[in-house]
């Protein structure tokens, strides 16, 4: 039976358990819910939980472990490479699995009978051709050893699957039955169910950790490879970034970090005041109708694909800035050489970030209790004084969160930078010069033409890792600051 079906049956058991548990609870008090420890639905949920959760966990673990165990059992059958390296062994094993899967598919599609698949000999049949017919890709012709290993693998795995079906369903049933038996007026069903929910909540929170782990793992190997090819000191302290195909690239991260920082700061300098003032206006001054209209409108800014912003920067904002700050421009300063500049990208990115600040802040500000405002207005404060001195401080933690989110977004943005800021990695103070950011370079090195095991391509992983570590540091710092600040306050 397929895992999906088992899961569905378990869920059906759980649903039945819910009804049963609820009924039994009510029966134990003759229908008078007052004498139950918890609401009847909690008893039902308890039975459902006990039926489904252990069984499903077991199912998942089984599905993960079974192939490993089978590998272990089948591996000795392959004599030829047994002494060889682990990598080679795993390759052969994956071939064995593929053949086994192919045999399954062939039986399913009626190309082979069950007996044929079991007894097939590699010398008498062209296994590869047979399997090709059912669309299973094999790297080479199948050896006798592989075939017999695959056949054994099939046999074992079908036994395993049968065993899995039996055990999982038994666990589900056992869970349902124990829980049902335990269902009694004094049983603390709510506590048990809530405990279960709490575990779920913790699990959800741990997703962040798993993701982080995943990111680190998917970056770390290539990062290490990169540092084997390229000296770490040059990477961390190098002042030039100029990859080249023929080798001899300079891959210093500092200009990229500088560009990232510079562009983000400008973007925030645009987005934070505009977003915050817009949020204040919307939540404190605007009529409900204006608010109902303007807030979602601003949110559209967050949904416009970044490539549009990129084009906007390249085609509209850049030339506009040049006509002001370029040579012979209105400002007559001649600071700007070309349309692509830190300023261009920063401004446009700032526009994109407006709704991040405005919408989130608006919600937070709106949530400050009216009595706070009344207190201040009652003292003869103007609305703006009330906002600045009472409402904003009360809403500060949430607003800081919104700004941090916007900052994060600014650091991670690519498209606008590529089109708006240019590809030049420079360490310069002039905001009207072209620069680039870490993320833009991650994308370009990863999708470029460089040889994928050369430092020029692998540096993308190192850049990702570095940025990750730096933002982690910044976040720890931010948390520390917020804590410290809060202690003074409460």
């Amino acid at each position: 039976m397929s895992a999906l079906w088992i899961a569905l049956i378990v869920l059906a058991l759980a649903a039945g358990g819910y009804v049963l548990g609820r009924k039994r609870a009510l029966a134990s008090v003759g229908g008078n819910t007052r004498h139950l420890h918890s609401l009847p639905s909690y008893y039902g949920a308890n039975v459902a939980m006990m039926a489904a959760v252990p069984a499903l966990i077991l199912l998942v673990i089984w599905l993960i472990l079974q192939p490993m165990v089978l590998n272990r059992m089948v591996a000795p059958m392959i004599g030829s490479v047994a002494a060889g390296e682990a990598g080679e062994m795993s390759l052969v094993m994956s071939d064995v699995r593929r053949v086994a899967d192919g045999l399954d598919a062939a039986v399913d599609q009626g190309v082979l009978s069950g007996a044929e698949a079991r007894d097939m000999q590699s010398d008498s049949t062209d296994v590869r051709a047979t399997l090709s017919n059912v669309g299973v890709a094999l790297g080479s012709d199948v050896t006798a050893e592989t075939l017999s290993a695959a056949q054994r693998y099939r046999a074992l795995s079908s036994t395993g699957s049968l065993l899995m079906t039996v055990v999982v369903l038994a666990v589900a049933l056992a869970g349902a039955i124990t829980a049902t038996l335990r269902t009694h007026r004094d049983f603390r069903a709510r506590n048990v169910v809530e405990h279960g929910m709490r575990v779920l909540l913790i699990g959800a929170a741990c997703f962040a950790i798993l993701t982080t782990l995943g990111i680190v793992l998917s970056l770390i190997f290539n990062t290490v490879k990169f540092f084997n090819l390229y000296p770490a000191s040059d990477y961390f302290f190098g002042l030039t970034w100029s990859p080249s195909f023929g080798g001899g690239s300079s891959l210093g991260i500092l200009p990229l970090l500088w560009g990232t920082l510079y562009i983000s700061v400008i973007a925030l300098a645009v987005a934070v005041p505009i977003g915050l003032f817009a949020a204040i206006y919307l939540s404190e001054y605007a009529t409900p109708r204006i608010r109902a209209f303007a807030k979602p409108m601003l949110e559209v800014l967050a949904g416009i694909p970044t490539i549009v912003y990129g084009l906007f920067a390249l085609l509209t904002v850049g030339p506009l800035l040049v006509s002001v700050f370029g040579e012979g421009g209105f400002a007559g300063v001649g600071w700007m050489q070309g349309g692509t500049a830190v300023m261009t990208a920063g401004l446009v990115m700032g526009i994109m970030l407006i709704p991040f600040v405005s919408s989130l802040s608006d919600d937070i500000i709106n949530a400050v209790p009216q009595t706070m405002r009344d207190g201040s207005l009652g003292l003869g404060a103007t609305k703006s004084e009330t906002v600045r001195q009472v409402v904003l401080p009360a809403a500060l933690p949430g607003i800081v969160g919104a700004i941090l989110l916007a900052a994060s977004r600014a650091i991670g943005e690519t498209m606008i930078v590529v089109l708006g800021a240019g590809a030049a990695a420079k360490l310069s103070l002039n905001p009207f010069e072209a620069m680039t950011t870490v993320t833009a370079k991650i994308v370009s090195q990863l999708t470029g033409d460089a040889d994928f095991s050369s430092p020029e391509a692998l540096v993308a992983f190192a850049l990702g890792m570095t940025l990750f570590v730096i933002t982690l540091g910044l976040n720890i710092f931010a948390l520390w600051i917020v804590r410290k600040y809060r202690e003074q306050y409460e």
Partner: protein
Amino acid sequence: RDNVQVAGSSTVLPYASIVAEAFGENFDFPTPVVESGGSSAGLARFCEGVGENQIDIANASRAIREREIEACAANGVTDIIEVRIGYDGIVFASDINGPTFAFTPEHWFNALAPMVLVDGAIVENPYTNWSQIDANLPDQDILAFIPGTKHGTREVFEENVLAAGCEATGAHEAMIAAGMDEDAAEDACIAVRTDGLSTDIDGDYTETLARVDANPNGIGVFGLAFYENNTDKLQVATMSGVEPTVDSIATGEYPVSRPLYFYIKKAHIGVIPGLKEYAAFFVSDDMAGAWGPLALYGLVSDPELADTQAMIEAEQTMGDM
């Protein structure tokens, strides 16, 4: 899985997509999936291994490198068929309304190198206007949009234009004479000035076009196909007196071009339905021939196409060559 999966170069993508579309129309096989993402990323995925979950073909705008072949082999991807589909002509084009240019590699070297040879001495590049380099060139400020270092085109540009120009102007010799060793001189030849007169473009040709649009003084580096689709905005420059066309590139008269490839996992042939048929269809005369839709779109067809066809028929892998 019943469809062919292809990934890799965005330069090859247009051709691959034309072939895939026609393949889907004319064969009973499903239309292949052609992903872009860059030659490097495509080859990296290509080398992940053999199997249903792995791509069958990697497109590349350069030849696979030795190190990559090793990485492939380490993952069990050993039998690789290399298919050269034709050439990508690289052209220099400027705003349609501006003056006409006739370049030589020397012009470009003198325009872009940080150090050039002036009156027998290697000095910091003094040129800011094309007419200072050669009186025959129009009186226009130097402003170049060249491919960024992520692009393979950059390598071709460096070798066939800058290095050639360096050699031709005598700067290379002068550098050696000034005490540089061979490597350093080569590096110096292909270096690009950083004072803003030359801009690296990490994006695509559309970005280069947008920049030329915004700066009528700008001269951009494009693919031939891209230029041919945008003749309303761009005019092309000749190089060493040769106008870039499909023919002049095919005969090798026009110097700046690069070959385009795709790579097939032999292990997948016969297993993934339609794989071999797709590859054969790609290089068939109907598609990749001198009058096929690919050439019409701008691919410079390979004079040795027949060899390639035979190679696919025989499933000849790289090692067999």
